[in-house]
């Protein structure tokens, strides 16, 4: 099996499964080749922190985010799920770059909006439903230790549905979501990481490292 994988490796460097050529990734994302090389070094660090296989496992993702590989967090789980485009339980390099690119400041809003809608659609029905909203609100409250009564939580959800569910079908579809985003762009706040424009400034040495491998 290993020999088979090695056949696909580049002559000079060995890459894990899911590796994509930086030039290809650069042509399909707002990142430059240099930035992608810098991201590759970051990816290597993350993907070998617990299991040395060049793939980011959930535990490694949680370790990076929370310094705790068994952290329970619904939203981190959803982010991981969204990054894991192939849904094979790990984040490969190509997935890492392509998913991060959604958070790039130059990425159009509609892509961010669509990503976030799918993230919030936790049961994958194509709609954000009140019970999903409630689950998410409860999850957030769980992070904060702030306790609200059942009625209060339901009031918040109901209020949101009233505001967003304009066709009154009891759920939020992607059109209604887009209207909400248009009205309150701050909802997409988490979807932009300004420092993605600066990865090479912060990791300049990595650009050289990437050619001298393993």
């Amino acid at each position, binding site marked *: 099996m290993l020999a088979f994988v090695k056949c696909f490796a580049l002559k000079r460097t060995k890459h894990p499964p899911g590796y994509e050529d930086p030039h290809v990734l650069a042509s399909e994302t707002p990142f430059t080749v240099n930035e992608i090389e810098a991201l590759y070094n970051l990816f290597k660090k993350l993907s070998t922190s617990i299991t040395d296989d060049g793939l980011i496992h959930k535990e490694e993702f949680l370790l990076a985010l929370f310094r705790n590989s068994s952290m329970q967090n619904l939203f981190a789980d959803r982010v991981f799920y969204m990054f894991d485009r192939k849904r094979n339980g790990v984040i490969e390099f190509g997935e890492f770059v392509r998913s991060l690119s959604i958070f790039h400041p130059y990425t159009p809003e509609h892509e961010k909006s669509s990503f976030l809608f799918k993230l919030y659609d936790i049961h994958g029905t194509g709609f954000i439903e009140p019970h999903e909203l409630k689950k*998410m609100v409860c*999850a957030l409250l769980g992070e*904060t230790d702030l306790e609200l009564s059942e009625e209060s939580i339901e009031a918040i959800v109901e*209020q949101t549905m009233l*505001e967003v569910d304009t066709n009154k079908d009891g759920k939020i579809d992607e059109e209604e979501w887009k209207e*909400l985003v248009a009205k309150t762009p701050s*909802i997409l706040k988490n979807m932009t990481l300004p420092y993605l424009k600066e990865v090479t400034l912060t990791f300049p040495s990595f650009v050289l490292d990437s050619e001298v491998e393993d």
Partner: protein
Amino acid sequence: MEKQVREANSVEAGGDSGPSKNGENHEPPQLANLNAFDIIGLSAGFDLAGLFGDVYSKQETRFASRKPASVIISKLEEVSKSLKLKIGKQDAGLFKLEGSNEGRKGALSIDAEIFQVTQTFHLVEVKKCNGDTMEYQKLVEEDLRPALADIVLVWQGEKEKHEELPRVLQDEQEEQEPSSSSIETSTSNMTQFA
């Protein structure tokens, strides 16, 4: 966060009231209220800066306060003055604090935005708008935090460090008039929101 005043939730309808000169509130200030998506967006799970290590240090932070908005605003004014920052109201609940000294990357400019969860429970988001990040962080850690200490319930991300807070708010619940959206709260501590 964007500021919207939602009528159903807002007991403080009525005129715009800027930072009060004499520290007393004439009308309750208009603030942004949070809807479910705003609340959800506070999750630490969305804070991907951790993927990049400590390199990308925080340029914003939040704290919770059990004080009414008018008290928070007065406190911000007081703190600004003592730190020689100019404070101005930008929008409902949004204040800008500006330094006059040109630092390495321009004059330091900080936004402080107040969000209401209930009338006696607010979230304040403090974020750097302009200027040097290190200078901003230094100001927050060494000056802002100590100065705001008596209105802050807990700062973001301090869940592990924080000791057990008494469940004081259960008493508050009895006294508190329910707002039109009937939110009643009891809190031990407000922590770990991003």
